[in-house]
Every structure is written in C-alpha cells, then in structure tokens.
C-alpha cells in the first residue's frame, strides 16, 4: 500500500482575535487587564488523507477555512492541535507574484520569486527558457515590473511557480482572475501535472472548474468538513445549502 501524500489527523487551527490592537508597549503597560480576546476557530477537528496523484477540490463559502487549510498544508501556519503530514515537495499557487518587486525587471523578478519558492538559482537558470516561454513576456523581460499589466504579472508568477516541480501542488483561486487564454493554459498545465501523477489540492469558487478538474471534493463550512467524497456529491450538497434569492 502506498502512503498517503497528505494526511491530516484531528487538525484544529485557532487564532486569537483581540479587540483593540495590543501591539505597542504602551498599551501593554497601561492595560492592567488582559486585552479582551476570543478564540476564533478557523478549522475544527479536520481529518482526511489524500492519495498520491489525486486531485481534490476544497469548496465552501468565504470564511469557511479553505485558505487556512491551504496555508497549513503549505507550512505557513502551524496547527494548534493535531498533526499534518505532507510527503514530498509542496508548492503553493496561493497568490501569484508574492514577493515580486515593482522596481526589478521581469528577469530579476523570476530569480527572486523562484528563490522565495525554494528553487536554487541554477535550477532557475536551467529552466529559464521554459519560464520565459510560458510567461509570454517577450520584450518586457528587461523592463521594471511596474510597467506590466496585471495579466503579465500573473503570468510571470504562474510560470515561475509551476517550475518548482512539486509533488503536492496547492492552488488557491488564482486561475479565475486571468483571461480566457491564460486560464486555458493554466488548466493545460494542471492536466500535465495530473498526468505526471502529482497530487493537487485545488480551492475554487468556480464550481464548473472544480468538477472539470477534480475527482474528489471536500466541502468546508465553519471550519468543519461537511461532505468529503465524489466531486459531484460534494458540489451538489454545497449548492443545495446556499439559500437562493427570489
């Protein structure tokens, strides 16, 4: 039996939500009482495991814990309780272009962004042609990022992020913001990853895309898993839960 690519056992993530900021020494010294804080539970006792090569969608309304889940998987947050095991290299397409600098050129940003995502400089150099081709920057590679359109910044971010060659790929609602041809390219790339046997976890509000890409879906609501099963079942249950207008 192969080991699961992703395993969550009873994972809870809570944040301290304080009323009134308490991050100056003055307020710390002046407040004799502790600041009024409550615990905000973003994920509540979530357990599931994902087999290698499986594409799983995570759906749910805003604030249901989807992004917290992806950040936990991407090792940005540590769980409050419970255990997370991710086997292999993880790459997150959480938000494209995180860490891009407006004053650096496209090429300089490729190296910086790649390094932030954990690529060695020589790995980037080796894959530079691929990156440049995918990003379609053309003559803009040598101009500062601040002269780019939003679409160009996104393409640049995506083309670097897919070079990480992860075993587990996390995608958070990044594709939906691009135009038609860009989206098509992204789904093509996702298809390639699927063929290569990568594990993909995909967060989206675009339920059509979810059904096209994923075979399994997890519906989160209020930080709890409502349905975890075939993508059609989860999407159907989720749709049924949304009160329709009129």
């Amino acid at each position: 039996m192969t080991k699961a690519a992703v395993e969550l056992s009873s994972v809870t993530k809570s944040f301290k939500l304080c009323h009134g900021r308490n991050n100056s020494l003055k307020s710390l010294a002046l407040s004799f009482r502790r600041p009024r804080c409550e615990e905000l539970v973003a994920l509540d006792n979530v357990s599931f495991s994902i087999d290698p090569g499986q594409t799983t969608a995570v759906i749910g309304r805003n604030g249901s814990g989807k992004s917290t889940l992806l950040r936990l998987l991407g090792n940005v947050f540590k769980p409050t309780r419970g255990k997370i095991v991710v086997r292999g290299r993880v790459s997150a397409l959480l938000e494209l272009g995180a860490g891009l600098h407006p004053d650096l050129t496209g090429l300089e940003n490729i190296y910086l962004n790649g390094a932030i995502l954990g690529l060695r400089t020589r790995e980037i150099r080796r894959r530079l042609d691929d990156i440049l081709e995918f990003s379609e920057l053309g003559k803009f590679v040598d101009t500062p990022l601040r002269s780019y359109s939003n679409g160009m910044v996104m393409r640049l971010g995506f083309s670097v992020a897919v070079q990480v060659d992860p075993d587990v790929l996390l995608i958070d609602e990044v594709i939906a913001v691009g135009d038609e041809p860009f989206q098509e390219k992204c789904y093509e790339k996702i298809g390639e990853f699927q063929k290569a046997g990568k594990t993909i976890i995909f967060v989206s509000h675009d339920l059509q895309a979810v059904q096209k890409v994923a075979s399994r879906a997890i519906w989160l609501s209020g930080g709890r898993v409502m349905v975890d099963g075939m993508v059609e079942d989860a999407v159907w249950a989720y749709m049924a839960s949304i009160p329709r207008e009129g």
Partner: protein
Amino acid sequence: MLSDLRELYKYRDLVAQLVIRDLKVRYKNSVLGFFWSLINPLVQVAIITIVIKVLLLVRIPNYSAYLLAAFLPWMFFQMSLLDASDSVLKHHDLLKKVYFPREALPVSLVISNLIHLILAFIVFFIYLVTIPRAPIYSTALLLPVLMAIQFIFNLGVAFFISCLNVFYEDTKFIVAVGLNALFYASPVMYVSELAHNALMHSHRLPAAFKEPLWVLYQINPLNALLMGYRKILLSPFPEFTLRGAKLSDMPMNWGYLGIAALISILLAIVGYRFFNKRKWGFAEML
C-alpha cells in the same frame, strides 16, 4: 537550532537573491548609485572634524581618518539595525503566503550592509593613500577578522529587533533612540583615549567608580571593535595636551576584543533561538 540552520542553508540562494535585490533596489534610478550612500557619512565626518578641531581644540593630525575608520563600521551597525527592524514586518504579505526560513529576511539585510561596508572601506583606502598620504600597515590584514566579529554582533542584535518589531512596533523607535545614545557611548566621533581621559580626570566621580566604569566602557563590544578598526588601520596618534593633561595613544587591549567576539557569538546564538521560537507566529499576527 541546527535543523533551522540546515534549512537556512538549503535556502542560501534565497538569501543571495534577497541581497542582490536589496543592493539593486537601493541604488536604482540614481546615477551616482553607491556614492550617494557614501556622501552622508562623508558630510557627517567633515562636520564632526570641524567641531572637534575648531571648537574643542583637539589637535590630532588626520583626525578625519580616525573618524572614518570608526564611522564606517558604525554605519554598518546602525544601518543593519534600522534595516532589520522592519525587515519582517515589511514582508508580512509574503509571510502569509509562502513558506521559507523567516530569518532569511534579517540575515540578507545584514549581509547587504556588510557588502556596503566593504565597498566603503575600499574608498577609505583610496582616500588614505591619496589625501593624508598615510601608509597602509600590514595589521590591516586583520580587517576581515574585525568585520566578521561585527557581522556576528550585528546579526545577533538584528534577530532580536526584527522579531520584537513584529509584536511591538515601538521597537523600531526604541532602536532609533538607543542608537542615538550608543553613538555617544561608543568611540565614534571621539577616540577611546578621550573617554579615558575624561573619566579619569573627572572631579565629580568618586575615585572608586572610575576603574569599574572604564572596564564597563571597554566591555561594550562596539568599543573594542571601533578601537580595533582604528588601531589596525592607522598609526598611533602623536601625544597632545588636553586641559593640562597629556594624552597619548593607548595600545589596543586585545583581551576586550576577545570578549567582544564571545559576546557576539553568544548574542547571535541566543538571538537566533529567540527568533526561531517566534518565527512561525509572524504570519498569524494580523
């Protein structure tokens, strides 16, 4: 801590890229580039030279050279701390999205300021042989040792303040005030001999306090470092009279430099642990 260091080593290319970014962005769009950042210390050194020579009537030949030899490392200390203080906070967006060793941020800034110091010292040597026509001594070969100790010292302090500033934004103001005080408490604009002279000839201080205070003054790693830079780069200054007392060059007390090295290493280890213990909480500070 070792596993953290291994992880940081795995991300060494990130540190390199962050250093490159910092140096590129700092001097973007300016023709003079690097020289702009030299102009500030040069102007300050010129002003302090005038104050010391004309107003305080301290007669040391080539006083500017003695000033610069300590002022450039002082800038390394000051800029490392100021840059590091908001290094984590400034990248808050990034921290919430991507995993990478958080210490790459302060570490890269201290490195980029070290590179800056090296460039500034090259200019300093050119100045030394052209304007005062001073000789360059073989002791100047010890310069990398001093810079290494100071690098570790700066790094240790940077770990503390970059971390604390995430939780308490007052930190960077405290750092600014602290730097101001340290500037006068360390031999930057004056030589250590002057501090010794003032302390020993003070009429207000009880005699019993003088020796311990002098020891305390020398234990400040910045004193040992800045004094060290002067001693290895420049000739001993000739004896002169100040307020009726003879003031002559003191030999370097290498023991205090050893203590400074120990303090620096200890500070860096404790600072790194302090930082590591809190670094995964950064992303959750909303």
